[in-house]
């Protein structure tokens, strides 16, 4: 047994390919046989992935299990970004330009809405200082904007931890909810996908949500979402903190 374990651990990326391959196989089978294709195979696969991460319970999900550390490499930023950019192959430039203006608008509106939502919940839970409210609002944008903003304006580590948790909840909720809500919000064309990416912003959520809805929409959502976290880190400690300070 330990021989097998050490082979798996030493060839982590291969173990990941095998594990994820089997997960995909099971998911697509379940999609066809159990839901008659109503729930997309990739949506099931993503939910199985999240469930495995929960059961493993580590900071990096199953990647914290030594034998499965390769899953972290396979699903890490490097290969993820490579695959995302590759999905743009064959997309025509005009498609991006068509959704460009509304994409930019959705970025700004989406950021403000998320900051507002997070800040409002923080207020409802008894926070009354601008620093904490802004930081938790920033976490509701993404789990990177939260700690960056909190660090810049001097939030307590407890509040920063809460902002990261809020961002994680958001990412996971977007992953799970998108395929179910796609039809209701008209998410079935490139422009709508660019709006979706801009408003949601959470990279992992947008990418997984679109993959589970319609993989053809992925490059459009990714195009706008890629600006969100950076823009959030820019606006959070500056404009949004100043707005929060006028109220509290």
């Amino acid at each position, binding site marked *: 047994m330990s021989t097998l374990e050490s082979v798996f651990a030493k060839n982590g990326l291969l173990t990941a390919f095998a594990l994820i391959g089997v997960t995909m196989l099971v998911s697509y089978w379940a999609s066809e046989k159990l839901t008659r294709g109503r729930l997309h195979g990739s949506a099931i696969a993503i939910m199985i992935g999240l469930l495995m991460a929960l059961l493993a319970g580590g900071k990096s999900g199953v*990647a914290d299990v030594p034998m499965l550390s390769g899953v972290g490499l396979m699903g890490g930023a490097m290969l993820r970004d490579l695959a995302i950019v590759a999905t*743009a192959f064959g997309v*025509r430039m005009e498609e991006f330009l068509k959704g460009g203006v509304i994409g930019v608008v*959705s970025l700004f509106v989406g950021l403000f809405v*998320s900051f507002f939502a997070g800040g409002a919940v923080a207020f409802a*839970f008894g926070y009354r200082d601008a620093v904490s409210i802004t930081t938790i609002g920033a976490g*509701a944008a993404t789990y990177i904007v939260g700690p960056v903003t909190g660090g810049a304006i001097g939030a307590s580590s407890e509040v920063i931890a809460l902002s990261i948790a809020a961002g994680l909840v958001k990412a996971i909720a977007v992953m799970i909810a998108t395929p179910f809500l796609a039809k209701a919000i008209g998410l079935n064309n490139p422009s709508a996908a660019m709006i979706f990416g801009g*408003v949601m912003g959470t990279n992992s959520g947008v990418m997984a949500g679109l993959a589970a809805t319609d993989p053809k929409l*992925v490059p459009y959502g990714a195009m706008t979402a890629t600006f969100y976290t950076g823009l959030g880190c820019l606006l959070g400690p500056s404009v949004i903190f100043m707005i929060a300070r006028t109220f509290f």
Partner: protein
Amino acid sequence: MPIYGTALLSLCLLTGLTVGRMIGAALGVNADIGGVGIAMILLILGCDALQRRGLMKAPTESGIVFWGQMYVPIVVAMAASQNVLGALSGGLMAIMAGLFAVGLSFVLVGVLAKKGGKEESPS
């Protein structure tokens, strides 16, 4: 050779991430702004230029297409390496803040997507 395509893809991403970091630094934030988006534009323009010159061969293309097709499995691996327990153990406030933001955002996407669709339809 497929490696030509994968090399082009990698170069686009490396360039995009560098430019994204530079934009971030210029604006005074330690974050990448739009790196992946810039890389996608570079890839589209680069492939377009190669195709027009007839330099884009099928094996080269396959070195890009493969990674695009690996997208969903890679996202599943990403989902499996999320801190799901951390999200749930953040307590009710963190869960509410995340869910409220997602709920409002979905409504907003619906409104903007319908508006965008109307503006597009006459053209």
